[in-house]
């Protein structure tokens, strides 16, 4: 699970109102090499919940000195975009879980795949 994906996921347990962002509990993380496309990264940024990304990256120990606030004029800041690229697309949680911040319910991540299926009584 890349952090880009994590940024889009939320807890959907019944009754939970503040299920985003999910807390990451990682037991295995890897960093892949992914081809850098500055335009792609640039386009992604406005779609992200920036603070959730920073929080997640920090939690994994891969903050890469990304600032808590978005840099102004990031489209032209290649260095910045490269850092974002790494955090967003290269860092991957292989094993661990995603935890609902409100109910504590954990969703396992196994071989890079989060299992977000709910039980009958959580739906």
């Amino acid at each position: 699970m890349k952090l880009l994906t994590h940024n889009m996921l939320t807890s959907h347990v019944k009754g939970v109102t503040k299920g985003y962002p999910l807390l990451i509990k990682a037991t295995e993380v890897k960093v892949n090499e992914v081809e850098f496309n500055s335009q792609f990264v640039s386009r992604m940024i406005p779609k992200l919940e920036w603070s959730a990304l920073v929080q997640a990256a920090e939690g994994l120990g891969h903050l890469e000195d990304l600032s808590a606030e978005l840099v102004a004029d990031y489209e032209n800041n290649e260095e910045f975009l490269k850092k974002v690229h790494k955090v967003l697309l290269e860092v991957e949680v292989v094993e661990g879980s995603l935890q609902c911040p409100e109910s504590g319910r954990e969703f396992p991540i196994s071989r890079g795949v989060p299992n977000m299926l709910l039980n009958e009584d959580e739906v």
Partner: protein
Amino acid sequence: MELSEASVNAVKMSKERKKLIRKQMKSCHILLKHDGIRTASHVTKSLVVANGGLGNGVSREQLCAAMKEMGELETIIMSPHKPYAFATYSSEQSAQKAHGLLNGHLLHCGDNSVTLYLSFVDSVPCEAEEHVPLPEGLSLVEDFVSSEEEALLLAAVDWVTFDDDTAQKALKHRRVKHYGYEFRYDTNNVEKDKPLSVGLPDECVPILERCLKDGHIGAMPDQLTVNQYQPGQGIPPHVDTHSAFEDTILSLSLGSKTVMEFRHPDGRVVAVLLPGRSLLVMKGESRHLWSHGITPRKFDMVPACHPEPPAAITPDLGNPGNLTLSKRGTRTSFTFRRIRRSPCQCAFPSACDSQGAPSSLPSAPSLPRCQGDAARLEEEYVHRVYDAIAPHFSGTRHSPWPRVCDFLSSLVPGAVLADVGCGNGKYLGVNPEVVALGCDRSSALVHICAERGFQAFVSDALNVPMLTASCDACISIAVIHHFSTPERRLAAVRELMRLLKPGGRALIYVWALEQEYNKQRSKYLKHQSREPSRSPNTAEGQSEDSASPKRTVNSHGDVGITNVDRLDTEVSGPVDQRPGEDQVHHGKLSVHTNRTAFNSQDLLVPWHLKDGKGKAGKGRKGGREAGNRDVIRETALAVSKDNPSIAENILPSIGPASDCKTEPTDSNRRSTPPDSMSAKVATPNACLDSSLPSSTKDTDHARKSCPGFEAAATPAIPESSTAAAVFHRYYHVFQQGEIEKVCCQVDGVKVQTSYHDQGNWCVILVKD
């Protein structure tokens, strides 16, 4: 001024405490809202433990262990599937202590951890016990063999022959081995003139002599079937063929206990706990009329304290009782039977093949009448199937459909795309400029996506864990037709639209009832006309990437559509007389014959998994050759009024069906006559009162037996033909105009385009 350490700590604690109180209040609120449980604000002797229930994966032992430490514990009540438990202490003091120490406590249960929230309650549900008798003719003898004997018997089985069995491995079926005579699935009977070269192992002899001596049987059995079940494996409900075997059937449970469910034609279900080393004796009604099966699962709900043997576990109807979860281990059953040499003349002709009934009595489903039924139907006939066939399925799904690609290519770079029901990720890489996220209900398929480098997660299409209005576009290709009620299909569309931002677009493809459109037959039908005997398995021809993956005229041959105005006009019904949706409502699900036109909207479509073809299909037809080696052909479901439940297990049908049990009527060993059974509570899986569909085809086929519902493992001796495995998937195929009607029921959504593409009805929707 600096804060002292103490007051800093006090502030810290108070923050955590506030958080805990908040969460606890939330749990109280949820308990009240969903379960009507009122919590008390004063101290009482009883507590409700939220998150400490069987539904949370917490076992009775685990909870008891945690709670006992707090004081004298009187009772613990755990209802099946509930996410809470009740505990009553003998004093308020103990309860208060428990509350203080366990509220907010993280309880570790194996792989699982839960945070408990405790609240006082004025009352707890009361327990009542129901006594349910075992089926007539059934009895259970505990401790029939010693541990040493058990070990000897288990060692006597040589499983080596099976390790090469790819189909068995791929399908994760229980292992089966026969001695004496082989049971054949194509005839659903034994080859009585061809005994196997291997007779019953010597180790069985003392055990059988004991059975004789104890009066369970009158003559030595000459056939043995050994079944080995891993946790999560089972066997579909069935009645052992009357004409094949004599009355009494014995089954020894070794290695682990399990719960076996007996179903009577009138709808009664009795779940029976079979302890390890016990002997089940099945005679009379329990052997001839009741079906028996083992639900494939990893945990059973069993009585907490060992009940008076033998125990029938009663259906729990709001009766909490003292249940606990029991994890399954590997169970090996030895089923001894005696070949019947003359026609059966039992008193149960409705189930008797010697007296005219179809020889196999698989359970067959009908349309669900409630959410629970629907979910269960889909679990059996969609989810389990995809998980089992995932690699094979993925191998046949490699060419993205052009018009779907068109939609994907039309998205602006940087668009966020959700593919709900992404399968093997076929569409996730089509447009590399978009951010594609896939989700699917099948974990096996999602892992295939991950292996291919795509981002995907496991989720249900009715409840996608993404924020509202987070996507620029969504696709749902060949997904919604797997939902078994109109409400669920509508809910699926709603959920898809919820994900969209205003102005976002969704593309939906569903299989069409009308496979011929504008005089063009779909590829699905076309393959049939070209080569009638080939590939029995082409599930959705339109999605099958066989002969010509390149664009053909046909894929654009769907003229005469995409006129939005058309949607405003009254939708014309299909040309032939097809059952309308209301008619189908009470209907029965028929099994479709691949490569032919659909004759009903709700059906089960066979998928043939050829032995050894668990890997991706090769060649033109995805590597599946029909041939005379295929023992199984599409057949109508043999349906009998006598098996009124939804099949627990639609694992393919190869291998011996039965795991039969018998009961002693007059034994001195610890067996008790059926009517003195005491029963504790448990909930058998899916005791649904579904009526059976009538067979759409002749009963001849039925006699050849619906393989779909028999057990699934390869026959012991390779000399038998390589039977193929058949799975059935549930589909609701859509009539012209139907998907648009569903979409129009969703607020804030407009149908932008609609068209027919190779046997599918397709819509593009826009969110306001």
